[in-house]
């Protein structure tokens, strides 16, 4: 239940975690990315989400990134720290530490891989709310977790004191609408997959969205989409949205995410960096495909020899 606890709104970018070739965190690039996106209009940041390869980071590294993001973004920009861990007790512990490290809230998804039932999911978030006592950004990402939080379940979780917002990344647009209808008055329902539907989601009443690929590759142009929607500039907004869709749809066919996004960032001279294993960087052939996509969208002047 938000009840005035937070006033998060706008385009919150889920940040990449740039690694060096040998797998260390490239702190300079990380901070440069935060600064660049802020200058291009980002309203907040999600640190250590799926885009940030959270699965590859240990707790100390996550806390370090939270602190760096706070340093780079300054005191006022909302920073949400991804603290999902499968064990309830560990997720709570890390969430508390994230708040101490300067996060305004934490992003928590239901414990993936352990295949919990509904009763267990409720228990997980109830405990988190009771013990963390700081804003929790619920995250529904069925494709990765294998668990879909139905709008009715989300609505129930939205009664918990510290559940203040939701990133709704179901692919089902009807469910996004149903979620807004069920509990949009109690929690801030942010849309995921903004490259596909960020504009429509805001027109529909979402206070914001969590973006990734399009913001970090297209920069200012894509980030402007939120404001265009708020100002009701339908023609301009849908034109941008069509381009972000084109980017996302073609990128999905090349390599894995976020390796493909990082490649695109690097090709454009933005701070992407390398991936950490198990994700490998794109091979030569895939890099050429990414360059081609960028050229077609007019983001890159010419195909750079990979």
């Amino acid at each position: 239940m938000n009840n005035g606890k937070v006033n998060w709104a706008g385009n919150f970018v889920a940040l990449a975690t740039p690694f060096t070739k040998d797998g260390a965190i490239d702190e300079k690039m990380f901070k440069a990315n935060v600064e660049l996106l802020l200058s291009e209009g980002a309203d907040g940041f999600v640190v250590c989400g799926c885009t940030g390869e959270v699965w590859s980071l240990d707790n100390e590294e996550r806390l370090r990134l939270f602190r760096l993001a706070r340093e780079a973004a300054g005191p006022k920009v909302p920073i949400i720290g991804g603290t999902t861990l499968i064990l309830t007790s560990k997720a709570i512990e890390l969430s508390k530490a994230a708040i101490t490290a300067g996060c305004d809230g934490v992003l928590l998804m239901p414990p993936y891989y352990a295949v919990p039932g509904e009763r267990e999911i409720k228990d997980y978030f109830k405990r988190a709310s009771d013990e963390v006592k700081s804003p929790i950004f619920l995250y529904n990402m069925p494709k990765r977790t294998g668990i879909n939080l139905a709008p009715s379940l989300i609505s129930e979780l939205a009664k918990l004191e510290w559940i203040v917002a939701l990133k709704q990344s179901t692919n089902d647009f009807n469910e996004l609408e149903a979620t807004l209808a069920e509990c949009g008055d109690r929690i801030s329902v942010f849309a995921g997959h903004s490259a596909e539907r960020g504009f429509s989601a805001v027109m529909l009443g979402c206070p914001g969205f969590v973006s990734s690929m399009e913001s970090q590759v297209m920069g200012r142009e894509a980030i402007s989409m939120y404001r265009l929607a708020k100002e009701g500039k339908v023609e301009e907004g849908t034109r941008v949205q069509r381009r972000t869709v084109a980017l996302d749809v073609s990128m999905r066919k090349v390599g894995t995410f976020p390796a493909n996004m990082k490649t695109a960032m690097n090709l454009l001279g933005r701070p992407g960096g390398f991936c950490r294993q198990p994700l490998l960087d794109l091979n030569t052939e895939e890099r050429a495909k990414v360059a081609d996509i960028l050229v077609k969208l007019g983001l890159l002047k010419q195909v750079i020899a990979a």
Partner: protein
Amino acid sequence: MNNGKVEWFGNFPAVVSPFTKDGAIDDGKFVANLELLVSEGARGVVVSGSNGESWALSAQERLRLFKLAKNAVGKRVSVIGGTGMIPTGSVVELTVAAKEVGVDGVMIMPPYYCGPSRRDVIAHYKMISDEAKTPILIYNSPKAVGFDVTADVAEELSNIEWVVGIKQSTLDFTVFEQTVAACGDKLRVFTGHSAKRGLAAVIAGAVGFVSSLDSHVFGREGISLFDLAVNGEYEKAKQIQMRTLQFDRAVAGIASGPTIMKAAMNLLGRPGGYPRRPLLEASRGELEKIEAAMDGAGLLKKSSIAA
């Protein structure tokens, strides 16, 4: 490529990790369970697999369980340690440590949750093989992991030096058969879901089971299924398979896998213990359903055990 590195054969239960009510590992129950299963015919044990709630165990806890298992039954049967995690570097580290405490091999699933490509998965196993140089049992459980080790991928993986076997838990039996055909000569092909298809898998060429409900709840009867199948005692094997299959169907969906199994074990006086959060112990209502399913299978002596 196995090439004679291991001779794993038979029923290898993926053992539960019994916790106390407040979430500590119950060493006594863990060891008692291993002793019981080995006395009932298990020829190996898989420690810290999905059945053992591997996601709920720290690397240190996993190593401690490997050591306990090695000391308890390591002289009599093979001990395989589950060392799967997402970051390749962490898996290498844990696998090397597992080798040092003396496990006979490790079981590793492809990195889950991060949506890896085939190329990522191959590189993951290659790195672990090169660095740890210890027998690796691939674990394919596409539903939980989100990546499917099809026969084609298994064949490619079988060329990696220390990949010696696969626990093929695809729900698609055709893929299971294709896996045996594609690399049964290079890998020890074990089947998962033995409660459902152990007999069929042996006929299709499986050299072992990584079993769960069937061994932990049915004990000697469930474990014997593998030997009966291998020895061609199909009628007897079929009877047992029908019982484990029906029980598996009867309890499916009541709660999460380890929760059901632990509740059933406890009802039988076997050392199940509690699950660890995020999984919860069975509620009263769930327990009643599990008990009814067990009663239906004739597993309980009396039909009324106080819930």
